[in-house]
């Protein structure tokens, strides 16, 4: 049975993706940030499909020490139960913040959770992914097209804007996916970004306030069900041969920002490695 790890798997896109993939026979390892949410999500999936193979783990992925703890737990589980192989990692966990707030490391929270947590978790799980010729998928957004990376102030401390922080984190995700393909496609690991479109989830109402919460409450009414982007994840997991594209919407390839270049990718990798105290090195991880 192929194993898939999904972050942010207790609600919205992550939960629906877990539900659909469990139905298709994958073993799902979900990560959520509270015990209650994990329990509720597990019950929800099992009530639909009593034979679903699922296991939930609790971690606040905004904090790097919890990413590392989660990776250690998952790796141990994979080694003991799945021959150390991970077929797919779906970096879906994300947030919106109305204000500049930092993690324990002093990193802006949208940058830390939407992008950097996935960068670090992928690094930690890379040996298991390489063993299975696995796939890394990341929840992106079409909004990545309207922005450049603020290299001189990547945490936006000098002029914080919630939307800018969100868009930039999504651009970083697609740069990361390209960087992974550049480095590991030949070794069998492929990375993709899924554009979910406008989806009716609560992402803009959790720990936000004032204008952001109000605008999102109105905007999400026009969004599609989380099961729509979940189908794209199922499509990418279900292809026998790894698809060659990078950015997908409604199960089809789509064009991405012109700022997704090799130069920007390498620059982001170098910065992110520094911010996580790691070094992606094929020799070290395979």
């Amino acid at each position, binding site marked *: 049975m192929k194993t898939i790890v999904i972050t942010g798997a207790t609600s919205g896109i992550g939960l629906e993706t877990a539900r659909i993939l469990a139905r298709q026979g994958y073993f799902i390892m979900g990560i959520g940030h509270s015990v209650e949410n994990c329990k509720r999500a597990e019950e929800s999936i099992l009530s639909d499909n009593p034979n679903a193979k699922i296991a939930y783990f609790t971690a606040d992925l905004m*904090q*790097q*020490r919890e990413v590392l703890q989660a990776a250690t737990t998952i790796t141990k589980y994979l080694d003991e139960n799945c021959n150390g192989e991970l077929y797919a990692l779906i970096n879906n966990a994300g947030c919106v913040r*109305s*204000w*500049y*707030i*930092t*993690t*324990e*490391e*002093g*990193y802006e929270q949208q940058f830390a959770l939407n992008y950097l947590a996935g960068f670090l978790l992928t690094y930690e799980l890379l040996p298991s992914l390489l063993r299975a010729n696995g796939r890394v998928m990341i929840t992106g957004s079409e909004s990545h097209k309207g922005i450049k990376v603020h290299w001189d102030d990547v945490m936006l*401390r*000098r002029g*914080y804007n919630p939307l800018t922080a969100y868009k930039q984190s999504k651009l970083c995700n697609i740069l990361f996916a390209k960087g992974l393909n550049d480095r590991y496609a030949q070794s069998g690991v492929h990375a993709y970004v899924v554009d979910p479109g406008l989806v009716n989830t609560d992402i803009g109402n959790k*720990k936000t*306030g*004032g204008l952001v919460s109000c605008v999102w409450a109105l905007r999400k009414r026009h969004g599609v069900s989380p099961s729509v982007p979940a189908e794209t994840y199922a499509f990418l997991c279900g292809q026998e041969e790894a698809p060659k594209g990078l950015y997908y919407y409604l199960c089809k390839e789509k064009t991405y920002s012109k700022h997704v270049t090799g130069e920007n990718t390498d620059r982001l990798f170098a910065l992110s490695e*520094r*911010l*996580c*105290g790691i070094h992606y090195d094929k020799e070290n991880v395979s």
Partner: protein
Amino acid sequence: MNVMITGAAGGLGRALAIECGHRGFNLFLTDVNEAGLRCLQSGLEWQFSVTVTTKACDLTSAVSVDEMLKVIDNHNIRFDMLLNIAGLDFEGGFMGREREKVVKIVSLNDAATLRITHAILERRRTGKHFTIVFVSSLASMFPMPLKATYAASKRFLLDFATSLRQELKNQDADVLVLCPGGLVTTKEAMEGIAVQGFWGDATTNRLEVVARKTLDRALAGQGVYVPGSLNRTLAFLGRIIPRSWVAAVVYWRWNHVHSKRMKPSVD
């Protein structure tokens, strides 16, 4: 420049540590949260390549502070700046809070701040300018029923800092006292601001901006910093309106807020 920050592992302390790191200052960070200090140390070193030293310490314990000072003296660290950020609040009526919790507010906000300020002034770098920042509050400007102990502890800091500034004027040292309104530092702070509605949003200051301007003003030798024009107007009104009237209005407002929210908070 060597900077010591108390209460560094969260909220305003962490924001100031980030701002100092960005400016290339070397940091000595303390907080009761040892794990938080270690995470912040890594983050600052990775982001800014500055030297960061940490020591967990309960500033309300003289023994714990002495242990920290021993570390400082063993490494012969001498300081150019002290940022007194550690502070605490348990909201609610005076008799509605446990006795020791009420006393703890004054122990940390005032007694511990005096202890550390005295100790670090003794360890300032010889022959160099020295800067101290105290974190008071907009609450220090008014009588604050239902936040009585907290507001009074912050008034103490405002008056103490103003006096100390005068005492140190001829000793090449500056003292700034920061009096912010709400700051979005924690989930609880976010909820607290949200339940205050318009006034919560209107008096809330942006954390990163307050951190930046606090350092700018402290280094420029200013004495008092009240962030936000609305907050400065409120502070001015607090001086000209009879204090009994202010107390009545504040009581009405906080009573309303507390009916929505009765949770403890730490800043």
